[in-house]
């Protein structure tokens, strides 16, 4: 029951790098900022690899953006993915455009399963997977997770959290929803988005890193896919939230309570 899996790998800013907004609010300061593979996508890559290791098949990584995105594709290849696709596009991306592009890649690659992180930590929109599923008229299972703890034996053994069944035609997905855990069964092909507790991604071995350099990465321009690349969700202005006044010393519990209740609104 070999599976061909298409996985998204988005290049995002590392949240540890201080994110500053440009004085005119037109964007963020990118100088000195470090980039990495979107952590939710990393979990998606890991899940894809586990499914391949268990059932056989192929894992294709796709990224959309500038040339530098090939770094993130190589990171996924180093983990064990088979080949990559880089859709070249300069400029902002929103979930409408991303899903349109991915729909074209889907048509080209014809995978059995599309895995994406539930959201990317730059725009935090949490839409691309669902949008894509609707475009392709496919079932979706979002926020895929696992009930077993990440310290469990099954996790150590790298068991996939998504369970293939029905003779390779269906996928059982456990989802984290409000108040509990829901189980869905989707028929393949399907779109699944991954949540944090689905797995602990492996770190690439050196032989993996070396091999990744030789794996194929197909480059195609977004324009050549014939989709509308104009942003539908347009960022007009960016601002930094009122700065965290670190180090405010309160003198008693009364004051602390009022800060937490009225100012920070966390209690």
């Amino acid at each position, binding site marked *: 029951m070999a599976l061909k899996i298409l996985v998204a790998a988005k290049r995002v*800013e590392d*949240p540890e790098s201080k*994110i500053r*907004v440009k004085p005119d609010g037109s964007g963020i300061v990118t100088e000195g900022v470090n980039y990495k593979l979107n952590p939710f996508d990393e979990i998606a890559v890991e899940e894809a690899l586990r499914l391949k290791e268990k059932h056989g098949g192929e894992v294709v990584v796709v990224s959309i953006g500038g040339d530098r995105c090939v770094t993130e594709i190589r990171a996924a290849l180093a983990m064990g993915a088979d080949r990559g696709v880089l859709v070249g596009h300069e400029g902002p991306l929103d*979930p*409408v455009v991303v899903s349109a592009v991915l729909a074209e890649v889907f048509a080209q690659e014809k995978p059995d399963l599309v895995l994406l992180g539930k959201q990317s*930590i730059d725009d*935090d*929109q*949490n*839409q*691309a997977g*669902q949008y894509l599923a*609707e*475009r392709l008229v496919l*079932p*979706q299972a*979002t*926020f895929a997770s696992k*009930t077993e703890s990440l*310290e469990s034996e099954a996790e150590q053994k790298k068991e996939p959290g998504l369970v293939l069944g029905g003779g390779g035609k269906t996928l*059982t997905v456990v*989802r984290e*929803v*409000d*108040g*509990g*855990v*829901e*189980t*869905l*069964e*989707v*028929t393949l092909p*399907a779109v699944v988005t991954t949540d*944090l*507790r689905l797995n602990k991604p492996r770190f690439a071995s050196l032989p993996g890193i070396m091999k990744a350099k030789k794996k194929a990465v197909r480059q195609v321009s977004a324009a050549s896919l014939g989709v509308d690349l104009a942003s*539908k*969700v*347009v*960022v007009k*202005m*960016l*601002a*930094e*939230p009122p700065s965290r*006044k*670190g*180090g405010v*010393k309160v*003198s*008693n*519990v009364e004051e*602390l*309570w009022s*800060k937490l209740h009225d100012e*920070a*609104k*966390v*209690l």
Partner: protein
Amino acid sequence: MNVLIVAEQAQGRLRKATLHAVTAGREVARRTGGCVHLALLGKGVAQLGEELAEYGADVHVADAPVLEHPLAEAHAPVVADLAKALQATFVGAAATAFGKDLLPRVAARLDAGMATEVLSFGGDGRNVTFRRPMWAGNVLAEVEIATAVKVFTVRPTEFASAAKEGKGAVSSVAVSVDAAALKTRYAGFKVVKSERPELTEARVVVAGGRGTKGDFTPVEALADLLGAAIGASRAAVDAGWVPNDWQVGQTGKVVAPELYVAAGISGAIQHLAGMKGSKVIVAVNKDPEAPVFQLADYGLVGDLFKVLPELAAKVKASR
């Protein structure tokens, strides 16, 4: 311009988050001079529809067996068709798991752009803008949606819970979704009992360190009251006062709750590495020079054995 808000129900009860979404809907309606409509989907929800109508908006109830469970594949066509029928320019919901799962599919059906987790609105008429967090809340963005229909989800805590105001009309919506053609099957739901939430998922974490001198009772009492998880510094774990998996830090768990209370923790960099992503950090420590005060949003120099119980009392009193 009409606003369609999708209500959320579970087991025949309206989810509280919906009422916050209703407030958001009302605001958009005000900015655009339109009306708020509510969509209620499910099985056996007619009674609930009547309840919902008490919030002054017309309620459109889609009651069908195929809608018993919140499957996006089944719900999206119903909501999209309703939006078209109502000529709704705006379609919104609360940013709950249900809303986040469903609305993007609705948006795709309506060729609409969507803004997730909106905190507030700006502008009016066609030029309504949406303010939402990006980069994990480190940046606030004001976005415009350049499509005819605009879809959004709102963060419930940013909008007040709607008050009842008069009675709207309740109407039935025909549901033509073919259950047999669905490619998603609902296979079960398990309520997750939270005696104490998991450390890495908790909204609030109360953590104790060397300052507790082994006695975690004030920490546990406050945590229980707040429904919080309990964390600890390495010192407390090493001393054998608390289990290993309570350790927060570089070599323990990395947490990012809404609120992190560090009691009796000096704040060595190894510990900070595990909790610096918290939205609000409160530090309680006897030592005014403790490094944790550099990072904390609010610091109280004092004895945790006095401070934590006092705070717990305040919390209880406010409920």
